[in-house]
């Protein structure tokens, strides 16, 4: 099979109220990524995305940017658990020769349009497993995360201050990122003084919802050599779907899908946490970053607060976690902005927030029972 590489990245501004269609934003990000790759729309014959009935389809995007025909198109249905899987799917399609060059994207009006934090249309008449949750007033991701965080606090002695350390560092990182929505420094006093959302989670434990789009271009490694940027390879990928994707019917909610993904990702690549320069950990909430870091083995269970407080999650420490500010502070583009950042860092084009000599980046996707992870390396690494 042919090897694949990521050769282009593009994005729109992240905003709180775009005033634009999702399709228009997807087209802007895709055009930017294709131009960044030194290619034209006519070179693109594949598309891959994921959505939760809140976005546009791959062939709609293709048409919007003047691509007559796609040879390969996959629109996956789901949440941030798929943010790594779409990149791997496109790489596999390129490797298998199903297409030559694919655009991988996520586009949404996640703040001004469909919001995940509230009950909307489909939960008003609650079907499936939601019929047991929604009538109880239990409908939204921050409620599920708070439920797991409370259990974690009881079992491992983690604290709200530990969660606050995560929020503080990710917000500090965002200050150096002109794309970030939240760029003001956050103190522990301000973190603790912010209003409760669902105890034990407060305002700054929650992702900064955003409108916008991000796109990557994937093509063959052979073709990548003639393109303008340092190609980035996928060193490994793993994913896990457990317990029917249920938010509460899994035995131990103090771990996540990453408890299964991480050992497979490390074993299949021969890499370990010590090899990671940049870790874009899925921080839709501080709590998912906490457990992600534990599951991947960056630190012991219950020790994440200290890990952050001692400077081990930032520049000069063990690994730089979410140098762009993550979903907490750059913005919540359902985890796909993590991939843009990882590629940018490995190209060493991240400017003021560049992680020195970045060679290997981990990007995790999803929280709870379903998700995945991907390891990117520079081709010359």
């Amino acid at each position, binding site marked *: 099979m042919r090897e694949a590489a990521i050769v282009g990245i593009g994005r729109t501004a992240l905003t709180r109220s775009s005033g634009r269609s999702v399709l228009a934003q997807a087209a802007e990000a895709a055009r930017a990524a294709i131009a960044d790759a030194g290619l034209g729309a006519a070179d693109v014959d594949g598309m891959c995305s994921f959505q939760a009935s809140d976005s546009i389809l791959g062939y709609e995007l293709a048409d919007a940017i003047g691509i007559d025909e796609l040879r390969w198109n996959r629109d996956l249905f789901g949440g941030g658990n798929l943010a790594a899987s779409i990149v791997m799917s496109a790489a596999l399609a390129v490797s298998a020769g199903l297409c030559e060059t694919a655009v991988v994207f996520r586009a949404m009006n996640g703040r001004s349009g469909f919001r995940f934090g509230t009950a909307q249309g489909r939960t008003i008449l609650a079907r499936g497993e939601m019929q047991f949750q929604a009538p109880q007033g239990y409908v939204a991701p921050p409620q599920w995360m708070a439920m797991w965080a409370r259990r974690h606090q009881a079992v491992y002695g983690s604290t709200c201050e530990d969660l606050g350390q995560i929020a503080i560092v990710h917000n500090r990182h965002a200050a150096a990122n002109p794309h970030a929505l939240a760029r003001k420094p956050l103190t522990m006093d301000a973190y603790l003084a912010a209003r409760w959302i669902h*105890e034990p989670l407060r305002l700054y434990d929650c992702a900064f919802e955003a409108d916008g789009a991000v796109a990557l271009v994937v093509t063959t490694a052979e073709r990548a050599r003639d393109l303008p940027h340092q190609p980035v390879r996928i060193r490994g990928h793993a994913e896990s779907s457990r317990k029917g994707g249920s938010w509460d019917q899994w035995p131990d909610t103090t771990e996540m899908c990453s408890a299964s993904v991480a050992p497979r990702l490390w074993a299949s690549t021969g890499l370990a946490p010590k090899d990671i320069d940049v870790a874009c950990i899925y921080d839709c909430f501080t709590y998912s970053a906490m457990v992600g870091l534990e599951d991947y083995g960056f630190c012991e269970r219950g020790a994440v607060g200290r890990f952050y407080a001692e400077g081990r999650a930032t520049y000069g420490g063990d690994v730089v976690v979410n140098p762009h500010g993550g979903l907490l502070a750059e913005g919540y583009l359902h985890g796909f902005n993590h991939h843009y950042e990882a590629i940018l860092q490995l190209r060493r084009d991240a400017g003021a927030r560049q992680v020195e000599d970045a060679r290997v980046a981990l990007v995790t996707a999803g929280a709870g029972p379903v998700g995945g992870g991907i390891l990117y390396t520079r081709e010359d690494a």
Partner: protein
Amino acid sequence: MSLEAFETPPQPAPDFDSEGFWRATAEGRLALCRCRECRTWLQPPLERCKRCAGPTGFEPVSGRGTIYSFIVSRHPCCPGYLDATPYVVALIDLEEQEGLRLPARLLDVEPAAVRIGDRAIVAITDLPGGDFRIPTFRIVAAPDV
């Protein structure tokens, strides 16, 4: 559609697998799905057992359990509960089987007094906005009630 447009809570949409659950709560009972062959309890309910593929039916449960975890919901995010904050939602592990778990609101509790491991007992409650009744729970004072 703003949340305010909905004054009543989300209503369950019973399906072929779950109608026995809602029929029981309508009669004031908590009954869960159980395999007639291997006797495993299943939540959510299913036509066939996920372990042995045996036929299932609904059987009454004690309604007693312990609090696996809980939250105090303070941000209005759900129709019908917009003026009800703060309210407490817990995951209740029922005593019939390890990990047999229901999400449920806790009634008549002081949020600060709730603890993981507290024992709770079901209280079937009317759900505003329709004819459904739902399983909510109350904390029981004595540890072995």
